[in-house]
């Protein structure tokens, strides 16, 4: 069955295709018929009238394909019109959820087409097709009435408001106030006939007012109700626009909103006359919420309302009760159906639809909460170095407050409790009743970790139903102690840990949270599914290719029209821009990663009793999202090393005549198309002699070998050295440094180290901007083309006959500058026919991977191209010499060669040949 998203897409595709049916193209009509038939089954259930039309269309197209209806202008136009009305009906349906009857003329036209050819044969597809509809005709847009234009205008504005309301931060009162004002401005646009709409607008305004006045128990909750109210309002208006006179449906909607605004339902059902506003009141924003008009106890004190809502089983209604009221009676109703079945007390089960909505709300909550936690964490660290800044304190407070509110709404009691306890501490600090000590900061930071874990638990619970029980009471008790000043001994962090049963701090546990947390503060962001991004990149890539093909079309280049040439070059510019932008969408600032490092340095330094100042620069440098995620582990490792072993203890530093405070600087910057991440410390540096000694001991270096500093420093990345048991003795560096290097090389990056004994070390990681694009050399072998990553190419040559030699008639070798390299004949390897099999007439490319080299025999080098890497599906990725594929300039798929695989293969083979040789010799 087609998904709703697909229905829309198929509709568009078919409409597009209908516009340009080429009678000579044998595929297009069957293709259309298939898609139309799919539409019929997709629409059948909810839009029977549209499904009928789709069926007629499918029949027509089928008949056109079979030749029983001529493929001419008349038939194509009829189908195109049919498609247009189908699309119109679908758009209407999306808005109103009602099936619009299909316009009779369209049906008539189509059936006329068939009648014309009736005599010849009626195809079997005619079965089940009912032509013509008895219903009155409404087609495309809602019936045009006098006020229609105005309704559209209101709808547009309303839509904007709705969007903003869904995205704004309820704690930011200026935003809420702005929203309220915008809502006010709509009122005059609503004519008197839609007084229901007016009443609704007023009620929503009142909710906003209460949010601003902090009358609502919870702002987040309030906002959600407003957002729902806005959606209802949109529905209401659309119905009015379509000429529907107040049905029972509209009445229920209105009553629900009334309850949400805090009115007893009696007044709500008859709001029309009472609130029918004169223009004066509408224009005056202050006039619309007379304080006395809102009975505060309305929602809780009215049993009728509650019973009413219970009968409706509507989650909206349930949450409506919660606004302004936080009494125990509302708590049960606050449970969100389906999400947390275990905690749902007496709440009636909601309709299936509601569960989906709630799951959405829940996932929104999780990502938002994670963002807030990330923000709180970085702000907390900022606050620590700048304790007098009350704005920072307020910011953290707001984050916790928001989390608490939303968690309360979702009935996540543990999260609410923890957030609440921290909120208390922070509130104390704001009122200056409590001083923010380092120990308190610890507690707050710890709570952030705990909340992250709790969030993860909750997510897991929703996803898999697995109930994780984490005991937060120990933590809560500690928070209370801390708040009351009974601070625990801050020099014993280990005991702190033990006091929290079931809670282990794990730095990696939420590795993807809070990405770009700070950025959200400055700019507005849209969360986009990466799948969609990939599709966008694909499609844009395709656009560029098609564009090039058009530009290179001989007919176009033969044309003497200057206008055409200009237009094409303009098109080229635009599509290149578009490609650039689409590629950059995957880029995210590295800030979140850096902030995590800041936190880690702080924790580690406290643990080892060192004083370390952490600074970062260039945290807004953008990298591919994958790179940012992958760099986390190696960077963590390096930073840990720097704190643990790089920076000396205060005593040592004093003895060395250095300031007691150590410094670690983490910075990122661009350099020549690459990103450099640099980690500097002013610790003791690498002890050259000891590293060298170890290397000699392990036989990695000859005792009398002269090595430059750089070569010695590089030794710490050597697996033979760094994985040895006592490495941490070597000036502290080297634990798993080989792993660090391997991880970075996996990202097609490089890591280097520079060190000055006594004054510190600098580690620099050189990374490509993105993993999605490589510079490739396109090579030709026979008819096929392959892409060889430029980074793996050493050189290319056409060998002289004396450079080619064979080994025992088996392996071939090429001598390049007195070194012999095995030759791989790509055509043999891939089973394709080559143009040239003699290496002296063809070309040889010398490649290198993992320190090994080999030669590839190819027919020609076709030039450099930047290509977007695409994966091959599992069943096609059988050959280790292939790493993926890419679309070439002409739209064909080219396979990307994997130098590692090629080199590894020759290594294996030549070793075998040598063994063979031995065997033969003996």
């Amino acid at each position, binding site marked *: 069955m087609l998904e709703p998203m697909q229905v829309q897409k198929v509709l568009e595709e078919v409409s597009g295709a209908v516009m340009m049916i080429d009678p000579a193209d044998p595929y297009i009509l069957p293709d259309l018929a298939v898609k139309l*038939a799919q539409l019929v089954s997709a629409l059948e259930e909810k839009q029977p009238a549209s499904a009928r039309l789709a069926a007629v269309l499918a029949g027509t197209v089928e008949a056109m394909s079979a030749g029983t209806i001529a493929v001419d202008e008349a038939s194509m136009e009829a189908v195109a019109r049919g498609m247009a009305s189908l699309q119109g009906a679908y758009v209407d349906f999306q808005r109103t959820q009602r099936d619009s009857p299909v316009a009779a003329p369209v049906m008539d036209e189509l059936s006329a087409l068939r009648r014309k050819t009736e005599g010849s044969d009626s195809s079997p597809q005619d079965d089940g097709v009912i032509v013509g509809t008895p219903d009155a005709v409404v087609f495309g847009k809602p019936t045009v009435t006098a006020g229609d234009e105005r309704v559209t205008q209101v709808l547009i504005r309303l839509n904007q408001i709705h969007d903003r309301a869904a995205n704004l931060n309820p704690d930011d009162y200026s935003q809420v106030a702005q929203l309220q004002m915008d809502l006010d401005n709509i009122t005059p646009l609503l004519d008197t006939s839609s007084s229901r709409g007016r009443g609704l607008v007023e009620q929503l305004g009142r909710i906003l007012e209460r949010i601003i006045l902090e009358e609502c128990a919870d702002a987040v909750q309030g906002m959600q109700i407003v957002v729902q109210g806005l959606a209802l309002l949109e529905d209401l208006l659309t119905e009015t626009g379509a000429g529907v006179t107040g049905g029972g449906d509209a009445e229920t909607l209105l009553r629900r909103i009334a309850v949400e605004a805090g009115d007893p339902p009696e007044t709500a059902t008859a709001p029309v006359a009472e609130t029918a506003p004169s223009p004066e009141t509408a224009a005056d924003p202050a006039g619309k919420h007379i304080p006395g008009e809102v009975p505060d106890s309305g929602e809780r004190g009215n049993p009728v309302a509650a019973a009413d809502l219970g009968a409706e089983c509507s989650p909206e209604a349930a949450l409506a009760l919660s606004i302004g009221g936080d009494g125990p009676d509302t708590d049960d109703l606050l449970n969100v159906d389906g999400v947390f079945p275990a905690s749902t007390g007496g709440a009636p089960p909601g309709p299936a639809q509601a569960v989906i909505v709630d799951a959405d709300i829940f996932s929104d909550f999780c990502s938002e909460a994670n963002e807030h936690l990330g923000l709180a964490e970085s702000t907390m660290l900022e606050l620590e170095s700048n304790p007098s800044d009350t704005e920072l304190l307020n910011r953290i407070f707001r984050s916790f407050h928001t989390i608490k509110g939303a968690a309360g709404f979702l009935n996540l009691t543990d999260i609410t409790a923890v957030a609440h306890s921290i909120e208390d501490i922070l509130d104390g600090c704001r009122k200056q009743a409590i001083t923010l000590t380092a120990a308190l900061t610890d507690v707050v930071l710890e709570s952030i970790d705990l909340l992250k874990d709790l969030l993860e638990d909750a997510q897991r619970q929703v996803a898999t139903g697995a109930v994780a029980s984490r005991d937060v009471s120990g933590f809560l008790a500690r928070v209370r102690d801390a708040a009351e000043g009974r601070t625990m001994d801050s020099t014993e962090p280990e005991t702190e840990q033990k006091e929290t049963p079931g809670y282990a701090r794990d730095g990696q546990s939420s590795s993807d949270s809070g990405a770009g947390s700070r950025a959200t503060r400055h700019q507005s962001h849209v969360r986009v599914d990466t799948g969609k991004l990939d599709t966008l990149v694909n499609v844009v890539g*395709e656009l560029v290719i098609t564009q090039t093909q058009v530009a290179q079309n001989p007919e176009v280049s033969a044309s003497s029209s200057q206008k055409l040439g200009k237009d094409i070059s303009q098109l080229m510019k635009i599509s290149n821009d578009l490609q650039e932008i689409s590629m950059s969408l995957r880029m995210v600032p590295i800030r979140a990663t850096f902030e995590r490092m800041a936190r880690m340095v702080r924790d580690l330094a406290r643990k080892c009793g060192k004083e370390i100042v952490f600074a970062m620069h260039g945290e807004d440098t953008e990298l591919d999202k994958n790179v940012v995620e992958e760099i986390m582990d190696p960077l963590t490792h390096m930073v840990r090393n720097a704190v643990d072993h790089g920076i000396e203890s205060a005593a040592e530093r004093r003895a060395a005549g250095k300031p007691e405070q150590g410094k670690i600087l983490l910075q990122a910057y661009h350099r020549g198309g690459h990103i450099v991440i640099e980690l500097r410390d002013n610790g003791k540096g690498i002890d050259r002699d000891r590293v060298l000694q170890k290397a000699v001991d392990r036989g990695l270096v000859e005792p009398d070998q002269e090595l430059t500093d750089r070569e010695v420093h590089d030794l710490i990345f050597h697996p033979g050295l760094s994985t040895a048991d006592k490495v941490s003795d070597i000036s502290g560096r080297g634990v798993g440094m080989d792993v660090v290097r391997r991880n970075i090389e996996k990202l097609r990056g490089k890591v280097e180290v520079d060190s000055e004994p006594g004054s510190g070390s600098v580690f620099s990681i050189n990374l490509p901007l993105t993993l999605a694009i490589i510079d490739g050399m396109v090579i030709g072998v026979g008819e096929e083309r392959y892409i060889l990553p430029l980074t793996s190419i050493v050189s290319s040559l056409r060998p002289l006959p004396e450079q080619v030699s064979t080994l025992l008639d088996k392996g071939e070798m090429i001598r390049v500058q007195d070194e012999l390299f095995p030759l791989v004949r790509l055509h043999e390897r891939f089973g394709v026919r080559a143009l040239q099999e003699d290496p002296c007439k063809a070309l040889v490319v010398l490649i290198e991977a993992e320190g090994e080299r080999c030669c590839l025999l190819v027919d020609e080098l076709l030039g450099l191209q930047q290509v977007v890497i695409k994966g091959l599906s599992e069943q096609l990725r059988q050959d280790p010499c292939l790493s993926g594929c890419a679309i070439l300039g002409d739209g064909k798929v080219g396979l990307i060669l994997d130098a590692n695989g090629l080199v590894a293969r020759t290594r294996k083979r030549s070793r075998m040949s040598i063994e063979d040789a031995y065997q033969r010799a003996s």
Partner: protein
Amino acid sequence: MEETMTTPVSDTAVERSLEDLAGKYFTFFLGKEEYGLEILKVREIIGMMDVTPVPRTPGFVRGVINLRGKVIPVVELRRKFGMPDVEQTNETCIIVVQARGVEMGAIVDRVSEVTDIAAEEIQEAPSFGSNVDTDFILGIGKSAGHVKLLLDIDRILSAQEVDQVQAVAQN
């Protein structure tokens, strides 16, 4: 070997009664035989295009194509069914299907029609003994005097996956 061929198929696909099979089918020809695919599995029909061969794949995998920026595998149904190769004509085309959540193309000789097949027109595939593999045939439709072999595209792919496993195991 027989067992490995059948187990992965039987636990993934649910047996369907003939009544369930009634519905719309998209039909095409391989030689003189007409085959049908469930309409909802068919994504689109495109003309023949350049196919890039991929080394080390079974013979019936023709290679990959660029479908508007997406790279999808293309199988040669003739080879899959053990039929001889034929010259490509301008009627040869690729049917893009969705099999087990994966988009892939199937090369066929020519497309035929979209047709409704009623339950009473469908019968089970007769058994031809062990050397004719009828696993991926859902049933046989006999509408309007023509015989149409109704294919289970999911099973065609799963049989292919088994082949893959075997190919790897043999290496």
